[in-house]
């Protein structure tokens, strides 16, 4: 009962949020929340650490941007093509990476994603260093104009809530239970007769596809696709979001995404405030040192705070 009330409260909060906060920032947070949830499906519920998820996120953003801008496809098809691209890439990268376990798996995903980074850097349609610009938002179902930020926000919110529900469904399905078994003890799952490699691959493809959906939506919202989104630092960022919020928890990645994006946006303000309070000039440059601060959070989380915020809360309440 109280849980249902909680969900309802969150939903109401999300519905009125764009009247309080800047809608584009909110949409960006929603995209990253979905990206982190998709990533969490893999690390949190299958136990596979991918360091190449930027390839799906940023790659799908490019593809969606291209088909919307150059081919003139409608909004819905654009998202679908981007997601399909991410799923296909996920199938290729995942298929290669699951041939090795543990730390090698992570290194392979990182290396293959880097290869894709170079492909996108050189491919003429991405615009290289300049990025793919002026992607049109178009119309939902051919009628509703998405150029209005508020309309766009509600469309994005609907997509995100639906996808989140899908992820929850996957986790609680028999398929999700098998994934957890693989995470806990892979040899035992094999000995129980499960074809572990197929389950891992399917989880990887699902995760990649949903990460791609998040990237596609982000490209439409902001109207551009950039190299930053396919770079490995983006893969690192999504790991951090999930780690901060709590790996293997449902809402952890969402919370992590909110915190990290808010931090990226507000770090400059925090820096100037610190400079005022402490009178140390250096803090004024904090806004340009986002990587340094994210690195520090990374180190602190790994050393002292491995369960993440939600995980830590859950452990306290038990």
């Amino acid at each position, binding site marked *: 009962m109280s849980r249902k009330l909680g969900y309802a409260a969150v939903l109401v909060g999300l519905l009125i949020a764009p009247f309080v906060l800047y809608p584009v920032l909110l949409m960006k947070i929603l995209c990253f929340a979905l990206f982190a949830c998709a990533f969490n499906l893999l690390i949190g519920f299958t136990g596979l*650490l991918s360091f190449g998820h930027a390839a799906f996120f940023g790659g799908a953003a490019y593809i969606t941007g291209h088909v919307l801008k150059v081919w003139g496809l409608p909004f819905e098809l654009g998202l679908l093509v981007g997601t399909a691209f991410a799923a296909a890439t996920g199938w290729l990268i995942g298929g*290669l990476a699951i*041939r*090795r376990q*543990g*730390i*090698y798996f*992570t*290194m*392979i995903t*990182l*290396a*293959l994603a*880097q*290869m894709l980074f*170079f*492909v996108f*850097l*050189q491919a003429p349609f991405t615009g290289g260093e300049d990025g793919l610009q002026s992607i049109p938002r178009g119309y939902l179902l051919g009628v509703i104009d998405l150029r209005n930020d508020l309309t766009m926000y509600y469309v994005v919110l609907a997509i995100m809530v639906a996808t989140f529900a899908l992820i929850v469904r996957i986790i609680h399905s028999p398929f999700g239970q098998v994934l957890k078994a693989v995470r806990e003890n892979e040899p035992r799952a094999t000995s129980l007769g499960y074809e572990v490699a197929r389950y891992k691959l399917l989880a990887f493809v699902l995760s990649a596809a949903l990460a791609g959906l998040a990237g596609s939506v982000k490209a439409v919202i902001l109207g551009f696709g950039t190299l930053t989104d396919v770079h*490995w*630092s983006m893969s*690192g960022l999504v*790991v951090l979001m999930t*780690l901060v919020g709590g790996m293997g928890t449902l809402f952890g990645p969402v919370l992590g995404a909110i915190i990290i994006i808010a931090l990226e946006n507000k770090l400059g303000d925090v820096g100037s405030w610190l400079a005022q309070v402490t009178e140390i000039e250096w803090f004024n*440059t904090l806004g*340009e*040192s*986002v*990587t*340094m*601060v*994210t*690195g*520090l*959070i*990374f*180190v602190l*989380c*790994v*050393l002292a705070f*491995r369960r993440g915020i939600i995980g830590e809360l859950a452990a306290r309440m038990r």
Partner: protein
Amino acid sequence: MEIFGIPLAAFFGQLLLGLVNGSFYAMLSLGLAVIFGLLNVINFAHGALYMMGAFLAWMGLQYFGISYWVMLLLAPLLIALFGMVIERTMLRWLYQLDHLYGLLLTFGITLMLEGVFRSFYGVSGQPFAVPSQLVGATDLGFMMLPIYRAWVVVASLVVCLATWFVIEKTRLGAYLRAGTENPRMVEAFGINVPLMVTLTYGFGVALAAFAGVLAAPVLQVSPLMGSNLIVTIFAVVVIGGMGSILGSIVTGLALGVIEGLTKVFYPELSSTVVFIIMAIVLLVRPAGLFGREK
């Protein structure tokens, strides 16, 4: 003279540049393999420490007028100390956990180090002059051989082979290899394994710093020089497998040469060829060319 329609001098020039890059690959992947063998940690910070080695050389010359030759010894020592502090204060707490946490921790350290250097020096590269003793080139008849590049290849090879000798042929190396197989048993024989772990990490990152100093005059000294390299090194490590010391050296050199030759014959592929080879190796021989499943 031409070979497959490419001027011979350009061909050998790229071949040499490939060997130079290959030497860096070899030294870095060797350090990664030695660390992984004993600590079970993939040291993401390897690239950042390589970058710091190059920066120390640059800073030594720029601020204190310390020559390249002194820094070639001093920078690896300083980075080794720095690495040992990291190992003692942070990495040590993660050995009981999943190996992934070691990777995540060193990734965070990488971001911090890069961030610090970026906030001081920006992203553009700092030029570093070739030391006066190694300026110029000799004419070999079929090509001009830049002396500094030849020096890089020779110095790296000597360091790599010395490492191989120490690990495979000396008593100290025997302890290390035994520790890699079974640390508890080695400890039972009265060897201070925690100290050995610390020293090994220090040695591994010192190799990275040494490569960094060697690289300073060839490449520009920039805060991002390490992170661009580390991903390629990971691919090299996956291709070679981390089981064998000589394997790491050979794989590193060979991939550098292949990359250099790709630059001559099909430049569009030069940035991706290592990753393509990795994919092929994974399909044919998942454990890596010299690897064994752990």
